[in-house]
């Protein structure tokens, strides 16, 4: 176990391990996405009040769930980078930020598209939507902050602190619909007790959430591999891999 964690910090070892991981996780993720999308968009029944417009849930909820979870991944990498000064943690943090930003953006845009016919407005400044917009800016802030420094170690330190401070937003997003009066509805899938969404609609949703987790893992690992090649473009293992030696 410990030797595995130590090996993750080795660039050539991680590069190979990540390549093998993507090789099987990418097709599995694509199959899950296709099955989930087919199931959710065509097989699952329409909603009794919204008809077919509710089907945007199969993109909106998985994107939002993984955007929240992905933030913890980024902040955890930031903590590891600050405490243990592991370069691989910096690379993981830098790789996760744009993916999280895109997922948050997808959640915001699909929410607006759904909100117009359902609520009657594209946007409302309620607690859930506003805190989600803050998450979007936090992700973009980490992306921008990485580029703002010449010194990459200083950049990583600043980004790690920013991501750690931002973690307070995640429980706020999650609980915003319970703590305050908001237009956004509370969660339909419940960890304890009966869910407020019918099983025939929930199973494809759960499948899509798993698929989005896979998509996040695949994109982050691919980002990390690209970053590793760039970082170590002078070293012999990259030159060997590229066929220069």
């Amino acid at each position, binding site marked *: 176990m410990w030797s595995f964690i130590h090996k993750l910090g080795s660039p050539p070892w991680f590069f190979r391990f990540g390549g093998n991981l993507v090789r099987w996780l990418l097709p599995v993720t694509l199959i899950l996405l296709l099955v989930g999308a087919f199931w959710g968009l065509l097989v699952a*029944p*329409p*909603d*009794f*009040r*919204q008809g077919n417009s*509710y089907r945007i*849930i199969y993109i909106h909820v998985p994107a939002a769930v993984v955007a929240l979870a992905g933030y913890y991944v980024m902040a955890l990498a930031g*903590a590891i980078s*600050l*405490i*243990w000064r592991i370069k691989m943690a910096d690379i993981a943090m830098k790789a996760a930020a744009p993916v999280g930003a895109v997922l948050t953006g997808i959640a915001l845009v699909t929410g607006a598209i759904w909100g117009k*016919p*359902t*609520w*009657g*407005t594209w946007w*409302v*400044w*309620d*607690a859930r939507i506003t805190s989600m917009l803050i998450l979007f800016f936090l992700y973009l802030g980490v992306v921008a902050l990485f580029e703002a420094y010449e010194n990459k170690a200083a950049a990583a330190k600043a980004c790690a*602190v920013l991501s*750690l*401070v931002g*973690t*307070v*937003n995640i429980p*706020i997003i999650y609980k915003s619909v*319970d*703590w*305050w*009066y*908001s*237009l956004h*509805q*509370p*969660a*339909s899938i419940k960890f304890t007790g009966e869910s*407020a*969404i*019918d099983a*025939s*609609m929930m199973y494809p949703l759960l499948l899509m959430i798993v698929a989005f987790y896979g998509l996040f893992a695949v994109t982050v690992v691919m980002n990390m591999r690209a970053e590793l090649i760039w970082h170590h473009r002078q070293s012999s293992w990259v030159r060997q891999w590229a066929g220069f030696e």
Partner: protein
Amino acid sequence: MHPHRKQRLIWVSLIVVLSSAAIGLVAFALRDNINLFYPPSDVVAGKAPVDRNIRLGGMVVEGSIERSDTSLTTEFWVTDYEASVAVRYTGILPDLFDEGQGVVAEGRLDEAGVLIASQVLAKHDENYMPPEVAAALEGKSKPSLGPVSP
């Protein structure tokens, strides 16, 4: 653990705990501003300002919708099952607006305590089910739809 790393671990924990506490206190102090709307009981109790625009949220009272024959004006009552406020709105209502459904109306209270709304939004609840299931549930039990207290 190496003492340097231990010290950095303490720093990282402090950053998270202190920033969470600070932002938590700010959110607690601003809770009235974070709430999107006032429930009818707050409006009736006079907790909502009368001289400016407010949002009122709750359920549309069953049988309370009155539509004008000559204009787009609609009148209805909004309740949180403790108190009710009348709303008058001229304009196109969202598709999901209906009796017994959640609604958020923005506008100003007139002297009679009627909310003259400039915008009415439908509030969707967390229940998703196929039409057949909804038909089977019809009349058997009513899902709790009221706004939850914070």
